[in-house]
């Protein structure tokens, strides 16, 4: 009930209320619900921000607004598991492990990156700090609804707190002068030492058994790591080289945290090991190998190799490494390399939702789920296809026929302001 009232109060902030009160039916499109086979000439009905019906022989409610979308393709709203829109800034340069730093304390919801994301069909994103630290802080899962603050756009947990994961990295990006690590061995040792401390902190809490006298002193870093250790907070781990990937799996096994592997340039070399660890992977597809040492063997082949191995595969933009407006291209390059279209579309939607523990709400077009969807001019994996509309919780948030939205989709003078994309000269921060 508390959750419902939170939702309602958020909803009241929205400028467009078109979808509330009466249902809207989208008729005539090819619907790709991800939860099942594509539906030709399908109907999608939304009401009060939720999907109320989807199928080929759905009865359109008498009071519904009917939208003819014949010839179009409707897919679930895209889930970007790794993005840097909104200026997320967590850890600073004082130390390599800062689980207490929250990016929610830094997000600029007026950044044009949110508009670019909507133009690319993204309706949910995991906003994270960079990979220049072993642990750069708490991430935040955002819904691309209209809002004035991070609190109004963030997903909330059942207790009302902002939902998110924990950003970690290994390999070359966190390596620099002390107190940062200088080697891979030191990187792992520093992380293990911190998790051991968190285990002890957690044990003290358990021993206290609710007695305030026996509780350890509050420690923001330890509290966040306890959430990681008990599985509430998923680790989103930057990793590229095959041995670095295995190091993540080794630490994951030792400490039992839940982890999503991100980027994973050399996934094709250890696909079986990743599958055996039952760990999901969020891939980035880069137009050429290299750019830095640990990405020298990156290959489009990662996508089909992981699919064949039975790994749950998703994708991310790493915006501004790649532009959110071109997110679907990631999965298309997976198809180019041999991934099935079904898994590729799942990778843009449900797989990402699962990695963020949001698959009960988003990721497919099913009755009861959030009315987050994208209307496309055609095949999701064609270069000729354009996003026509993006809907979030039953509200149209992007429309190619709106001149302002079109300007965002295409760019132009002042179209992407305010922008916080920086010219990327170095690699000290890393991604």
């Amino acid at each position, binding site marked *: 009930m508390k959750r419902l009232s939170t939702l309602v109060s958020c909803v009241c902030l929205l400028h467009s209320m078109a979808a509330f009160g009466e249902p809207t039916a989208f008729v005539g499109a090819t619907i790709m619900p991800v939860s099942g086979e594509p539906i030709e000439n399908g109907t999608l009905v939304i009401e009060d921000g939720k999907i109320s019906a989807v199928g080929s022989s759905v009865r359109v409610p008498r009071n519904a607004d009917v939208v003819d979308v014949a010839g179009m393709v409707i897919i679930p709203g895209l889930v970007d598991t790794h993005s840097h829109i909104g200026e997320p800034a967590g850890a600073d340069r004082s130390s390599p492990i800062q689980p207490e730093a929250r990016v929610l304390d830094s997000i600029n919801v007026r950044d044009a990156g949110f508009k670019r994301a909507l133009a690319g069909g993204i309706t949910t994103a995991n906003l994270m700090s960079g990979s220049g630290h072993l642990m750069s802080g708490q991430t935040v899962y955002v819904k691309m609804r209209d809002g004035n603050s991070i609190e109004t756009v963030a997903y909330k947990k059942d207790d009302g707190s902002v939902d998110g994961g924990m950003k970690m990295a290994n390999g070359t990006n966190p390596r620099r002068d002390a107190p940062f690590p200088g080697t891979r061995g030191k990187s792992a040792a520093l992380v293990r030492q911190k998790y051991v401390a968190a285990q002890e902190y957690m044990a003290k809490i358990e021993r206290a058994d609710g007695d305030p006298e026996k509780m350890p002193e509050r420690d923001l870093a330890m509290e966040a790591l306890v959430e990681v250790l008990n599985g509430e907070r998923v680790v989103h781990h930057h990793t590229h080289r095959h041995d670095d990937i295995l190091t993540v799996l080794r630490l994951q096994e030792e400490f039992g945290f839940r982890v999503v592997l991100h980027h994973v340039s050399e996934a094709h070399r250890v696909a079986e090991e990743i599958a055996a660890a039952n760990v999901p992977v969020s891939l980035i597809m880069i137009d050429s*190998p290299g750019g830095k040492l640990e990405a020298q063997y990156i290959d489009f082949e990662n996508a089909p190799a992981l699919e064949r191995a039975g790994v749950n595969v998703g994708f991310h933009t790493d915006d501004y*490494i790649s532009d959110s407006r071109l997110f679907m291209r990631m999965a*298309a390059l997976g198809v*180019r390399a041999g991934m099935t279209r079904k898994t590729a579309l799942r990778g843009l939607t449900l797989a990402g939702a699962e990695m963020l523990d949001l698959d009960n709400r988003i990721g497919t077009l099913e009755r009861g789920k959030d009315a987050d969807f994208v209307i496309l001019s055609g095949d999701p994996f064609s*270069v*000729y296809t354009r996003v026509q509309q993006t809907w979030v919780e039953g509200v149209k948030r992007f429309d190619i026929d709106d001149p302002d939205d079109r300007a965002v989709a295409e760019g132009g003078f*002042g179209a992407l302001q305010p922008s916080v*994309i920086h010219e990327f000269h170095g690699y000290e921060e890393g991604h």
Partner: protein
Amino acid sequence: MRHSKFSLIATLLCIAAFSAQASDIVVRGDIVYTSAGDPIQDGVVVVRDGKISAIGPASSVSIPGGIDVVDAAVVTPGLIDAHTVVGMVGYLSQDDDQDHLEQSAAIQPELRAIDAYNAREPLIEWLRTFGVTTIHSGHGPGEIISGQTLIAKTTGDTIDEAVFNPAAMVAATLGEGAVMSGNGGRNTPGTRGKVAAMLRTELLKAEAYAEKIAAAADDDEKDPPARDLKMEVLTSVLAGDTPLLVTVNRHNDIMTALRIAEEFDIRMVLDGASEAYLLLDEIKAAGVPVIVHPAMARAGGERENLSFTTAEKLINAGIPTAFQSGYEGYVPKTRVVLFEAAITLAHGVSPDQALAAITIDAAKILGIDDRVGSLEVGKDGDLALYDGDPFEYTTHAIGTIIEGVQVSDIVK
């Protein structure tokens, strides 16, 4: 006498037979896009001694025996990347092999690309895999004048085997991108105005240098000036022999570039030009071609106002336009001009226009259209093979041929 004549002929035949193996090939495509007229259905391209000797429908071109025949769904001319730094920069971004930008001084036109280009750089093979057969590479943006550029085929083990224009253009930068010029030295401009003043000052010096040479040539009493490598290169720019490739993005900086081109009456090519859509009339009137920024370039810094639609606007304004992979400092270390061209297709550019911008139109801007850029008899046998629409995300590059030699059979 008869005997020696016979042996000479035999020797020539042997040479011919050997070269037939090396640089003769027949390519047959379900559709062949030539960049020189309508596409040819069920087309055949015959390459002999590295040059196209015949092209046309299979029904009208006789396929010579003894030559390998390669089939593809789609055949295009070998692609041309009109501006890149591949070969000048190591693909792993290590400090010791980033040779595109020397920061000790703001103006160094004497730096030759041929003295740095690494023909075995892995990203050259990467570009070749996608059908790119010719690249315009060299010193990059970031200094007022960073050095020279070259044009090379994406093959060869040495610069000498790869290069076919060792001094193609002189690379310059205006605007904010040049404000940190010479940061390793003392000669650092702090403003746009100073950047332009420094470039004009150097061109004026070169004018004076050229005048002294001309005067000495006319008068035996006068000695020519001491050789000056910097001045020699700029003299070539002033004479119109070497174009000035000016990386510039903002509209005010584009105007500065055009102003300098007019003042010194030099051949100029605009590079990047992310706000070119604001100045279509001015650019067209100046007769300056544009190598437009990669479609997927990041919209930040000086390029914050770039648009996916700029290519369409330039092309349909009648401004000579080519596409490029550009310069990248991080990941992706290089873009692929085929992918960049593809993005413009969803934003108003027709497939024919996009193909032209990475073949014949690029060749014209680079001054190499007598050799490459289209499939016509007499031109180099450079071809790219695909298993479908080359621009579609899910199509594969399946083969690349340079001067009659299949240099890639990777399916990617």
